[in-house]
């Protein structure tokens, strides 16, 4: 699925340069669940952004199914994200003026799915996250956990190959966190997704097949989880 070779990412900060990623090498297989841990500011989200085509590497290559993402034009990256990559964010990032169902539909808009097609697929996506009865609710009318479920439904409604989750439980309480992680795990197994999850929570990371640790822009892969 993914092959990263010598990936670096630098940001200009004033007169200096900040190295967010320092020569990252990584291979992620199809259907794998990789958790990326690390302290804040050590490059976890930057890595996720590069994997999702939201940003471009300063050096090295990021290949997705053999395609170098840095060689793609912005429109091609946009289309790739629309078709193949689902995102889940720590702050849910739902569109505040759209209902739960409409937020899920928003993921199908760039795929030019007809209105009838969107109306047909959305209920199933909400049902898979247990929110079929909240379709008409606005984000402000949902709890944090429910909002994240809607975000998961939105990410999965287009049946992506890859699901990138950036601290999906960071804003949730412990019980809800477990529910969300359990839901993600279930969907991962059920759909054969490639799941890359960024977290600072070790207990969540342990549930993945592999765990990587970002330290000052360097990625170190730990041993595979003994539970897998």
């Amino acid at each position, binding site marked *: 699925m993914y092959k990263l070779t010598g990936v670096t990412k630098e940001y200009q900060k004033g007169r200096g340069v900040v190295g967010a990623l320092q020569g990252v090498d990584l291979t992620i297989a199809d259907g794998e669940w990789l958790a990326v841990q690390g302290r804040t500011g050590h490059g976890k989200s930057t890595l996720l952004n590069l994997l999702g085509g939201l940003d471009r590497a300063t050096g090295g290559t990021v290949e997705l199914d053999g395609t170098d993402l840095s060689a793609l034009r912005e*429109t091609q990256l946009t289309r790739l994200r*629309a078709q193949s990559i689902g995102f889940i964010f720590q702050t849910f990032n739902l569109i505040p003026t759209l209902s739960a169902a409409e937020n899920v539909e928003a993921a199908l808009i760039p795929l030019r799915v007809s209105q009838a097609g969107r109306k047909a697929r959305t209920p199933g996506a909400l049902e898979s996250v247990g929110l079929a009865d909240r379709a008409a609710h606005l984000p402000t009318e949902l709890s944090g956990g429910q909002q994240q479920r809607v975000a998961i439904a939105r990410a999965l409604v287009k049946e992506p190959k890859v699901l990138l989750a950036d601290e999906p439980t960071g804003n949730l309480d412990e019980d809800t966190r477990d529910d969300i992680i359990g839901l993600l795990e279930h969907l991962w197994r059920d759909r054969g997704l490639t799941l890359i999850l960024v977290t600072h929570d070790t207990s969540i990371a342990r549930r993945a097949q592999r765990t990587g640790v970002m330290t000052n822009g360097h990625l170190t892969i730990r041993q595979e989880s003994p539970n897998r």
Partner: protein
Amino acid sequence: MFFITYLRRELRRRMRQAVFIALGLALGVGLVVTVAAASAGVNKAESGVLGALYGVGTDITVTGNAPPPHYSSSGSTQPAKATPPSKNGPTLQISPGGGAQICDNGHCVNAAGHTYDRLVPPYQEPISASTVAAVARLHDVAAAAGVLTLVDSAITYPANSAGSPQLATFTVDGVGTEHTPVGPLAAATISSGHFFTAADSHAGVALVDSGYAASNNLKTGSTISINQVRFTVIGIVTQPQDTSPPDVYIPLARAQTLATATKNLGGSVANTVNLIYVAAASAADIPVVQHEISRRLPGDIVTAAGSLASQVTGSLSSAARLTSDLGKWVSVLVLIAAFAVASLLTMAAVARRAAEFGTLKALGWPTCRIIAQVLGESLATGIAGAAAGIGLGFAGAAIIAAVAPRLSATAPSSTIGSMQQVIQAGGTALGNRTVVVPLSPSITIGVIVLAVILAIAGSLLAGALGSWRIARLRPAGALTLVA
């Protein structure tokens, strides 16, 4: 439809800002519409004034110049005394005893108990009637009509010396009996009786203006006295509003035999006119026709409506300057301000939604799709601003119509409506006429379309500036704003 749903919800979320932008656009557009309506009203008033002073359908008038001044034995320059020769009818003279007496063919009687009635043209050189036909034959002349404008003045002396003489005047136009598209009767409508026919060319018949008829209790079949000759009223005519028509019309040939001219003006008005109305074949031909007539009639005054317009003074011309200069620039400045406010607010709204747009980009929304959404929101605001602006414009026009005073316009006139002092300036002898017209603002379809275009252009400009920010937005950078 998802686009409309998203648009509607977003506008509802920032309703206050959307209303503020729409009101700003409405204010600018409303001002443009109001100024345009006022300007249209002023233009209409100016056309009405020129029509009143000039005659509807008339492009050029030709009048005789003033006769040269008469030098008295003292050497001073003064106009000649208006003492017609005795062969042209009775004259009013001062008796040796100091009283007024009416003399006719050397026989004088005391004026007490008598009426001295004279029908005279204004103080202008007459124009030969054959000139009218010559002008009509000119290339690019559509029509020409000659008119003899006259004033009937009747002084009635009381039988006893206790009372004072009473002066009654009315204006008389001697007009051709054939129907022409120019001339005093070109725009008139007959409200009773009928117009002149060819058989009436030497008849003692008259048409009376509806206003004069009402004031003097005249109707079709009534008789009126002109220069002590009885005429039968065969029709009552009504002229367009705000014109100053003559009181009575009689056949030109009849007027030429009836009127008396002063000694300075040749003593006779036979086969003469003192005003020629000319209609050019088209507006573009007016300067050429004016030049050609001036060349052929160097001693006469040839005036086109356009040059008359530049001589209009009074509150009407002030209003015209106000709307065209100040009004225009104020509208432009307010519009620019409205556009600027709309743009700034839209860009600020886009900045606040950066994370939302970053999320949409992460979902795979193309930049153009996001821009279309923002432009759609701006367009909806612009349409609301246009509608409100048109409403404000109508309200402004209604207020102007309700409170604006009637405008006056004073201009040199080719006809003299009553016995009034002739102002001589530079060899030109013309009277001044003042016409009062209402200011009636009008909003045309063109102005409404302009208002809509301006409002939409302003809103799209604002949306475009916001869209520029979206196009430069990096998804990763935008998403960190949420974090």
